[in-house]
């Protein structure tokens, strides 16, 4: 029997894993999103509204929020096509902050006071979603579509010249990532049964990116390692009391300096599974 303490931590890992995957999908097309907490917030608030006010079952509420967030992701993605690299990242940052400040003034859902009353979900339910979507991403990684996404990542102009619809690939990735982030938010809301706008700020978005980069940004499984590390490391550093965060920051820099491609990459996976290295 797992203690409540670890059950809580693993729920956090599952939720963070979904957030990290939402960034990973968008990053696979060469776009960095620093605003996925915004999509998470949209999912959290919409799913909570559906379960609390309209008494929908949680699963249906999650699915509808995912579709709604995907639609918003696509709408946001279109103007974002004009921006590239760090400018796109800053635009998404602005989007995320705007969503957070919108819910801060949105009195029907509690405004700055937060919103409560959601039915509680179990750890197993969270991991059913987290595991399912992880599997979906791992399958996607073996598809032709993924090759197209990586092609856009590596060289957008060349990908366009060989006849790929780069616009559809980039927008589609944004929509898919937004949907995953919304599910992450819906699960977060029904796990903590209380949400407030500050749950969905810049620090959350950066946590997602951090999990992807620390775990390994070239393989989907890296997000699992990253999410585990980001949740468990601060717990393991508890013995440092007041200096815990400084140690965490130091370790973060150290990992980035020693393994800039992230902890997990294809070479490491091949070695761990005793495969021959691909030529």
């Amino acid at each position: 029997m797992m203690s409540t303490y670890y059950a809580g931590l693993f729920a956090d890992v599952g939720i963070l894993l979904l957030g990290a995957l939402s960034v990973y999908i968008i990053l696979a097309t060469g776009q960095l999103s620093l605003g996925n907490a915004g999509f998470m917030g949209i999912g959290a608030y919409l799913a909570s509204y559906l379960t609390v006010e309209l008494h929908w079952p949680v699963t249906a509420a999650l699915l509808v929020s995912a579709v709604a967030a995907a639609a918003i992701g696509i709408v946001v993605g279109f103007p974002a096509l004009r921006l590239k690299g760090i400018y796109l990242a800053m635009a998404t940052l602005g989007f995320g902050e705007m969503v957070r400040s919108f819910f801060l003034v949105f009195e029907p859902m509690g405004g700055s006071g937060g919103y409560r009353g959601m039915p509680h979900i179990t750890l197993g339910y969270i991991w059913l979603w987290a595991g399912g979507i992880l599997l979906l991403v791992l399958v996607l990684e073996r598809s032709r579509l993924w090759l197209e996404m990586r092609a856009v990542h590596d060289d957008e102009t060349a990908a366009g010249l060989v006849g790929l619809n780069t616009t559809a690939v980039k927008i589609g990735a944004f929509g898919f990532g937004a949907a995953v982030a919304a599910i992450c938010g819906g699960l977060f809301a029904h796990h903590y049964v209380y949400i407030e706008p500050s749950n969905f700020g810049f620090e959350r978005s950066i946590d997602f990116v951090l999990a992807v980069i620390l775990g390994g940004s070239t393989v989907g499984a890296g997000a699992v390692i990253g999410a585990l590390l980001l949740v468990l490391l601060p717990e393991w550093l508890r013995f440092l009391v007041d200096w815990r965060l400084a140690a965490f920051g130091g370790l973060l820099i150290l990992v980035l300096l020693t393994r800039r491609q992230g902890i997990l990459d294809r070479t490491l996976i091949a070695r761990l599974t005793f495969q021959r290295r691909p030529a």
Partner: protein
Amino acid sequence: MLLQQLVNGLTLGAVYTLIALSFSLVMGILSILNLAIGELFMLGGYLGFALIAAHLPLPIALVGGMLGAAVMGIVIEKVAYQPLRDAPLITPMLSTLGFSIILQNVVTNVWGSDPLQLPSELFDTRIPLGPINVGVMQLVVIGVAVVLVAAVAFLIQKTSAGRALRAVAENRDVARLLGVSAGRVTMLAFAISGALAGAAGVLISLHYAAITPYIGVDTGLKAIAVMIIGGTTRVWGALLAGPLIGIAEVLTIAYGGSQARDLVVYGLMILILLLRPQGLLGGSRSDVGQRV
């Protein structure tokens, strides 16, 4: 009343301008977002605070805050940026985030997490100007910001160090071929950027007469919005956008409630990105950022 608010907004905007410039110096030359700038701003504020509390004159406190933040900026450049120079853009951005976490933790442990207050007798002098009251400190904040922006503009446009900065921003490899030491230029950019953030920190602690370790996150993000609204490629963009955002924020608090202030700031930022992605005064370079 409206005039009074305008003066308050102008003071806040002066601080935003300095931090936005601090971001755009590093951004313009290296296209990376230094996420520790918010914390350098906070650190500068605490250093200035400590010097004022030790009864040292204001100019010394200002220089102290600037120096401390500039040195920290150089440390960040050496540890977090230089080794990761050829990594994808996200990696150095996250290592600067590591520094931001460390700085916030250290300052909290040294000075405590409760807000520190400056003795109020320093700040009670107000000059009545017709219908409004201008605090002496507000004039100091605006004055110092204007002087610093002018100094940075002079440095970038007129000095040989500034030419080297612009050359590296334009094309790092060609600049190196022509004998510019790109490493030293990068260090200079981080140092000036740190000094500006530190100065802004000292000024905001004078403006509010109080400071907390968490002031950097919020203000830093808003300064990024100011940088985008003004345009990242020109110094003058921040000079226009800073006061604009400061005034918009203060007016929103006065007439629309304090909860709506962020919505207005980031709404303006998104609007600018949609209508004029290069920013109000930006050139044409803004949408050709490097790939991540």
